[in-house]
């Protein structure tokens, strides 16, 4: 049963690592389905992670932290929207600007406020999201297979993990079953059609960007107040870009996007697990190679497999009424 336990532990780690990716990828989905490219997922996450940890530490309430994280992320989302939607600026440039701004700002503010070299103070228990034990998880832990899966894999995560995965069917429902979803999908494909149907393109795109901000807020707060116990400089470490990759890999659809996030998460978990494992006598797999594995695979997947992922047609182009 050793290997079974190993797998369970790895899958358990997968869920934890995949959660911020999933939040961010779904965030990107709402933005890009509305036709706004968002490479500032990374920046918004980082901003939210900092704000959440800082607010949580100061107020002593993790919920205040979460709210602060979301508010900060939404603020940057609105800046992105203002630049790209209202002023029809270049969406990539705006996104890069936000990423750079946030990377510097979080460390600077952190140093100034907390005097800990850019980090926030270590969070106490009340200032973090704690695991939720499912009923009877303890009692069932010894039941083979099912009990393991229940108590080790499914039970014992914090609320944000469950929320992230609950958001997948919810997003699918919003996107495909509601009026808002129909319009959102339409505005990412052909904003002129939306405009001539008498719907405001601007407001619709802003709503997409706002949802993106809220979800990025969750992703960031998760990183600093749930997965770890505080903010560290540049703690997103490219997760925003991984989320973008997952978004493309999942072809801008909720369920495939989730699967892509899980795959990336699994690679990450496997990397941790495989460190120090010897493939032959005395020859260990280099740690660097393992750490690089998710990125290498992403490159391969993006280059090879999903060459035919078709983005929303109007993504990246500001809407200008034709003359």
């Amino acid at each position, binding site marked *: 049963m050793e290997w079974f336990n190993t797998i369970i532990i790895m899958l358990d780690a997968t869920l934890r690592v995949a959660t911020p990716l999933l939040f961010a990828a779904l965030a990107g989905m709402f933005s890009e389905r509305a036709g706004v490219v968002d490479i500032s997922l990374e920046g918004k996450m980082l901003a939210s992670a900092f704000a959440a940890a800082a607010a949580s530490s100061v107020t002593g309430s993790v919920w205040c932290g979460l709210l602060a994280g979301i508010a900060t992320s939404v603020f940057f989302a609105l800046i992105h929207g203002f630049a790209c939607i209202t002023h029809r600026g270049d969406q990539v440039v705006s996104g890069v600007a936000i990423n750079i701004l946030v990377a510097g700002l979080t460390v600077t503010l952190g140093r100034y406020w907390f005097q800990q070299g850019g980090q926030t103070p270590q969070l106490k228990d009340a200032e973090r999201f704690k695991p939720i034990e499912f009923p009877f998880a303890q009692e069932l832990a010894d039941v083979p297979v099912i009990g393991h899966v229940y108590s080790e894999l499914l039970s014992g995560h914090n609320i944000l993990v469950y929320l992230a995965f609950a958001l997948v069917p919810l997003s699918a429902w919003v996107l*495909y*079953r*509601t*009026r*808002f*979803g*129909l*319009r959102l*999908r*339409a505005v990412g*494909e*052909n904003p*002129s*059609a*939306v*405009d*001539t*149907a*008498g*719907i405001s393109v601007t407001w619709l795109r802003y709503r997409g960007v706002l949802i993106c901000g809220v979800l990025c807020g969750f992703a960031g707060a998760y990183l600093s107040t749930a997965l770890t116990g505080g903010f560290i400089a540049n703690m997103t470490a490219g997760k925003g870009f991984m989320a973008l990759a997952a978004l493309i890999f999942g072809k801008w659809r909720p369920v495939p996007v989730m699967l892509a996030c899980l795959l990336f998460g699994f690679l990450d978990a496997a990397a941790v697990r495989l460190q120090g494992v010897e493939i032959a006598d005395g020859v260990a797999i280099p740690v660097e190679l393992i750490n690089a594995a998710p990125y290498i695979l992403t490159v391969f997947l993006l280059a090879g497999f999903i060459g035919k992922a078709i983005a929303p*047609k109007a993504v990246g182009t500001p809407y200008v*009424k034709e*003359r």
Partner: protein
Amino acid sequence: MYALELKNINKSFGDVHANKNICLQIPKGTIHGIVGENGAGKSTLMSIIYGFYEPDNGEILVNGNALKINDSCDAIAAGIGMVHQHFMLVENFTVLENVLLGAEDGAMLNESLGKARKRLEKLEEEFSLEVNVDAIVERLSVGLQQRVEILKALYRDAKILILDEPTGVLTPQETKHLFKILNILKEQGVTIVLITHKLQEILDITDNVSVMRQGEMVAHTKTKGTTREELAELMVGRKVRLKVDKSDSEVKESLLSIQNLSVIDHQNVPRVNNVSLEVKAGEVVGIAGVSGNGQSELLEAIAGITAIQAGKIQFAKEAITPEHPISPDKIRKLGVAHVPEDRHKMGMVTKMTASEAAILGYHNDKTYNGRILMDLKAVEQDCAEKMQRWDVRPPKPELKSANFSGGNQQKLIIAREVEQNPDVLLIGQPTRGVDIGAIEFIHEQVIKLRDAGKAVLLVSVELEEIMALADRIVVMFDGQIVGEVAAKDADELTLGLMMANAAGNEDNQQEN
């Protein structure tokens, strides 16, 4: 009382007075044509009626009530529907979703979809507009997509339907069907405004016609009792000849011979399929077809822009084969000139000055270059001369090419290619977006080239143009040549049937 009445509408963009004191009265249940050249202000006027622009002043009355139309929402509420020249459809949505977009009943889709389906089926029956409501729009033919646009308007209870250049993309048969639908709509009391530059269509279907020229309404008349010539004269402001004078062609040796040519695009879709064609000195060969049936790719393959996968393109001295591609530059030197279909994308760089645009592709010629730097004086001088010979207005080589009208840009491009004295001229959509006066001139020049013993390969979606210029007409459908006729034996009906491949063999029909 009129269904739609405009009183003294004015609209300026900066210095350009796009609409000057426009007055228009359209009686209920009639089909009203609006003709005018490109830039005459037709589209601006329609955009004002549909709420895209706010007029500087003036009044819009719908059924006698003065209305303020600020956006498309107001227009729709006033019962105005519009079928745009470029369809406003979400291509990967179904017909049903497209019609519903913006006219949903509530926040949840399921209910509205059910209702919409029932109403659409009723509408389709009422107006004989058969479309499968569950079909994905991008898989529908252009004619059907247009029907979806009409359905969209009717679903929103449009009582006034504006159609902007609706027949530009249709085969003659599809056009006929469209007109049938319009007549049914008219019987049901819908008022129709038809914007077009095709005079024959105006005569065929409208009750009244208004002519616009340079932002003004220059005439309102009953369609009965007017003629094409009269309308053309009103549009241009002077007499124009609508027929091209040409003698019989004297055909000599072959200058361009294509054998079993196949082109597959980067998405792996076959675009040109086993095409063989010959163009001889002293003849114009016209390629007819609904746009998107491989004509563009054929032209680009001959010009060396697109790689070919099979077959051979034989010029006088050299041949393109899949193993032996020739660069566009080399092909030009072999005496093949190319006027691309889309002048903004391939014909010129609109940000360059006219003199620069006028040497593109020939910019390495000795005449334009000193030892190290370009000889800008020679370039400008050369352009000034071309402008004079080709009547390009305004004759200012230093002006940005974007600031010339479509007709003058086109004249400049054709001048650039033809003045190189090529043996073969490849020319795509020579008069797209070009005013009537310039069309007349361009057509004359093409015939002149032919009479000088050159070979001309013409691609155009305007059947009238092909029939006026070509000596021989081949029809392309789905990448293949499906028919060939001598121009004197050609008529629109048979060509139209070939373009739709209605006479095609069974294999082809099954594919469709």
